[in-house]
């Protein structure tokens, strides 16, 4: 067994890429990651691609652009966690000794995906669609709006406290040229903004956009040959779907269980973590995951953001690149963009948003269907 080492990362700015195809975006990110690692496409022995939508086997389209070298390419759709899944599979392939060089790639073009016509009359798809109509058709924000409102009821929190997550993330993104939304925002602006689903206005929700990201993972032997300094190792890769407890699983509990598994794998605990990237597609999520990842007790999440403990310079910085709320969330590449940010931070290359002395980073994603993936990366 070897540890998986992240040898290189690359990404394209998130935002709008109307002039590029999905596979074109992915291929550019892979090239950037390989060049960062000092490796070439022909060195890659396996590639895992996290992509949502994009037709049949979209990962093969990325490989086709980079050249037919005969390597195995796997496409993964795990919703928001697709990129995280790709990174996990690349890391596991290396750690298992199956390959020395693996690539995880992700790409998304949300400006063109999410098609799907109406279901045939009398079909099981139509039946399910009709049940969804009765359950109340909602944008994703609707579900998180209900979660936010219930949390306000249960903990006496205020919507302004949740807005602070967006304020903090936009501030971080304003120092990140790769972020989709680089404007700073105030609590007052967020309160005034357009309402999507009460009580969530637009800045409480992540933007839709395009983008790509990739990471190269190599064995320790290969890392020594490449002279990687410092080496960033994958200390934990935990992946769970939900379990039924007192009702259908929610992302908060699944996050707790997945984090416990990741900490056990790494032999580390919350006190050892220097920075965190989370699935903060909606503001309430940072508050909840901060608790479930073990950085404070349940009910203390609001205090964490209010006291600036999750800001850069705080006790445990969250979403240093702006997170899903401001760096952006094109689904497929998001989990790998989190790895990109973590690797740059651990290398000490994050400039104005650098977390001083960062040695260990935790990366967290959840996805539709109740999946949760947590990685722990360490500079050795």
């Amino acid at each position, binding site marked *: 067994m070897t540890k998986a080492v992240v040898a290189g990362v690359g990404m394209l700015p998130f935002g709008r890429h109307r002039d590029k195809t999905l596979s074109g975006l992915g291929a550019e990110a892979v090239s950037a990651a390989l060049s960062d690692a000092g490796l070439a496409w022909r060195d890659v022995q396996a590639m895992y691609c996290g992509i949502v939508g994009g037709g049949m086997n979209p990962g093969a389209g990325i490989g086709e652009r980079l050249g037919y070298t005969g390597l195995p390419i796997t496409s993964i759709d795990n919703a928001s966690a697709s990129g995280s899944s790709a990174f996990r599979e690349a890391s596991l392939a290396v750690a298992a000794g199956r390959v020395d060089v693996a690539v995880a790639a992700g790409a998304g073009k949300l400006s063109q995906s999410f098609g799907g016509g109406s279901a045939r009359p009398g079909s099981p798809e139509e039946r399910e669609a*009709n049940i969804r109509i009765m359950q109340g058709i909602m944008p994703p924000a609707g579900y998180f709006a209900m979660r936010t*409102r219930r949390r306000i009821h249960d903990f006496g929190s205020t919507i302004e406290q949740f807005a602070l997550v967006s304020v903090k993330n936009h501030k971080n993104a304003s120092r990140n040229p790769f972020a989709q939304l680089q404007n700073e925002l105030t609590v007052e602006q967020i309160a005034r903004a357009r309402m999507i689903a009460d009580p969530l206005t637009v800045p409480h929700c992540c933007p839709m956009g395009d983008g790509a990201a990739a990471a190269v993972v190599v064995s320790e032997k290969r890392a020594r040959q490449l002279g990687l300094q410092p080496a960033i190792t994958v200390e934990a890769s935990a992946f769970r779907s939900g379990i039924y407890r007192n009702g259908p699983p929610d992302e908060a509990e699944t996050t707790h269980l997945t984090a416990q598994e990741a900490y056990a794998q790494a032999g580390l605990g919350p006190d050892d973590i220097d920075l965190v990237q989370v699935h903060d597609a909606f503001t309430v999520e940072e508050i909840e995951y901060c608790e479930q990842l073990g950085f404070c007790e349940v009910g203390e999440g609001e205090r964490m953001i209010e006291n600036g403990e999750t800001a850069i310079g705080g006790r445990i910085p969250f979403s240093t690149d702006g997170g899903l709320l401001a760096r952006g969330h094109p689904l497929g590449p998001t989990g790998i963009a989190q790895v990109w940010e973590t690797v740059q931070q651990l290398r000490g290359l994050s400039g104005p948003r650098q977390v001083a002395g960062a040695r260990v980073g935790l990366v967290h994603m959840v996805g539709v269907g109740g999946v949760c993936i947590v990685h722990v990366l360490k500079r050795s």
Partner: protein
Amino acid sequence: MTPDSGAPLPLVDGVFKIADGRPVLLVSRCSSCNERFFPPRERCAACSNENMQTEEASQDGELYTWTVVRELGGQREGFVPYVVGQIDLAGGPRVTGVVVCDPDAPAIRMPVRLCLIPQGYDDAGNELAGYGFEPADAKR
């Protein structure tokens, strides 16, 4: 079902029935662990047991949480705004549905009851209805 009987037909079979002009939700109870589910399902989500019994749920409940959908797929016209809630039915389970009320009206723990929501007509011209909720003190 006789055509033109005056009562609408359920939009979906096997999910709820209509009695005295009001929906009754059909829930699945697991014969092994007693967990209850809506919509009905063939296998228990808690223990994977395949022996499920169909029961009728209470027509009354209270709001666990709610939101107002203000836009959908970027569109801000059509049916929006409307209220969607999670409702704890008396005796369980917790179900999700549209709450027919003013967007300013809902509050957590507000008492609600099931009501019919018109859903157009089928190919034979029969009136269709889905289930929804309304405040318990709404005029009928």
